[in-house]
């Protein structure tokens, strides 16, 4: 008698536990399925159809993909935008992350005002990209902007050009704005990585009379490799999804003369319509999104693999 009682209590308890677990998991799972997984899956499906506005027409197989990649007009716009994204990635790696690396190495030496610098460098990171973009758009205004006023004040009249209006200077100006906005993030990630290196490594080298430059290059740099991996991958994802700064500063068409056109802008124009792309086109838009996803995903995996193997080697 005793044992069956116990058995039934146990069974009831297990049943209750199952119910309890289901209760805990359902809200989050439901939100994730409805608002993330279903849309992500549908994107692939959408790219295989022809669309007329919100209405789905016939199945077209991979035609949308081949249009984007091989149609002479579309293909030219696509690769032009893609090339600009490549420029953004490479430039940001050098000016934004390179600068951050130097700052992190300096901060790791525990200068006076160490906390203050961290807070200051992180300040632009927390601002909305839209605020930062508009702020610099005002500063770069050819007539009213502070940048040109300052250049004229110091006698560099010939440098006071309409920065966002010239095809040669618009993209570099935007990339500098991006660097101003974000450099604090890699700085503090690198700094945290340096702090995890055991101090006796560095102290021992210093006692042996190694120069700061040698310590930085031969001890700190190899041992902070995991942080470098993360920053490279995040910068890559950010560069190929670059949208807000070019959109706010120079609009949807990547003006002047397409010099600031990006995959993100092209995707938006294709999907939701614009002056140059015409009405909204969900088929080609989805195909472009799928291609971008595959490209970013594959590169991120390969980069992580390669950079991680480097980490192991050096340790």
């Amino acid at each position: 008698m005793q044992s069956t009682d116990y058995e039934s209590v146990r069974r009831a308890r297990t049943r209750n536990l199952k119910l309890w677990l289901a209760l805990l998991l359902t809200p989050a799972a439901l939100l994730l399925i409805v608002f993330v997984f279903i849309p992500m899956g549908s994107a692939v499906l959408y790219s295989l159809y022809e669309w007329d506005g919100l209405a789905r027409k016939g199945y077209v197989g991979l035609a949308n993909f081949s249009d984007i990649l091989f149609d002479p007009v579309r293909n030219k716009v696509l690769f032009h935008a893609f090339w600009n994204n490549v420029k953004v990635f490479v430039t940001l790696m050098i000016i934004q992350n390179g600068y951050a690396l130097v700052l992190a190495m300096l901060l790791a030496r525990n200068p006076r005002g160490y906390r203050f610098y961290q807070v200051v460098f992180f300040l632009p990171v927390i601002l909305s990209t839209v605020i930062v973009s508009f702020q610099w758009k005002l500063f770069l205004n050819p007539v009213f902007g502070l940048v040109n006023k300052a250049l004229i004040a110091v006698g560099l009249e010939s440098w006071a050009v309409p920065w966002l209006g010239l095809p040669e200077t618009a993209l570099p100006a935007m990339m500098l704005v991006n660097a101003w906005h974000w450099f604090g993030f890699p700085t503090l990630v690198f700094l945290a990585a340096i702090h995890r290196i055991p101090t006796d490594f560095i102290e021992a080298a210093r006692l042996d009379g190694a120069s700061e430059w040698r310590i930085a290059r031969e001890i700190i740099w190899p041992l902070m490799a995991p942080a470098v991996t993360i920053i490279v991958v995040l910068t890559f994802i950010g560069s190929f999804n670059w949208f807000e700064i070019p959109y706010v500063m120079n609009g949807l068409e990547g003006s002047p003369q397409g010099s600031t056109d990006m995959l993100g802008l092209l995707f938006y124009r294709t999907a939701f319509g614009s002056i140059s792309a015409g009405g909204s086109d969900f088929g080609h838009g989805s195909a472009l999104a799928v291609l971008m996803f595959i490209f970013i995903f594959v590169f991120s995996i390969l980069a992580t693999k390669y950079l991680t193997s480097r980490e192991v080697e050096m340790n």
Partner: protein
Amino acid sequence: MEHRRNAGLETWLMYIFLIGSTIAVLYPIFMMLMSGFKTNAEIFGAPFSLPKSLNLDNYKTIWTTTDVPRYLLNSAIVTIISVALLLVTGTMAAYAISRYKFRGAIMVSMFFLAGLMLPLRLAIIPLFVQMKSMGLVDNLLGLIFIYTAMSLPSTVFILSGFLRALPGELEDSARVDGASELRIMVEIMVPLITPALVIAGIYNAVPIWNDFFFPLIFIQTPENRTLAQGLTTFFGEYSVNFGVLYAGLTLAALPIVVVFIIQSRRFIAGMTAGAIK
């Protein structure tokens, strides 16, 4: 001697670099703040001098004739509700995954982690069609659902790391005392991970507050615009009045800057949480 002089030079260079960077960050923000107190004539005539007085006319214009206060309110509503919903549902899911052994537990946590790798922006077209059919386009509730859902994977990831580290004796002794599973979770375990809740909250609240992309696609009527998106409208309307534009930017930046300055340590820890192991 040689070495000493070298070290001195290095230190000098270091401070020049650090102070130069500080000026490069703070001066533009300071100019934005100061220009907000100026008239157009002052901005054009004396761009670098301090404003003649702390003239609040530009702020009055914004407060009385533009929708910027409304945008601020909408952003606050969306951010607060999204983060609250996120922390409640995220804690529940993380708790189930990390505190119980059950069949399929690994599958369930894989399911949540998979969301970490999916950039929802690229699914904006199907999402738009779906939201339209659900009546969630041009609706703050739609934004709240999207933000909550896309932030869940990172939240579950951060929280389950902390929950897993809690010792099992705590819940066992409570269970012996006859406490219900719900009470054990709410009264004993969750209070212990408050720091993790703060980190997960900040990690997601900042991008939600600052987001521009989803409102750009989903919000149409002026009353529903959020801050980042509303600023584009505001800039269109006041494109010739620089003082008002600078004041608007300052006002838009103010809430998050104030919170950041008060809580800088937590912000930095929270926002870099995804990149630092």
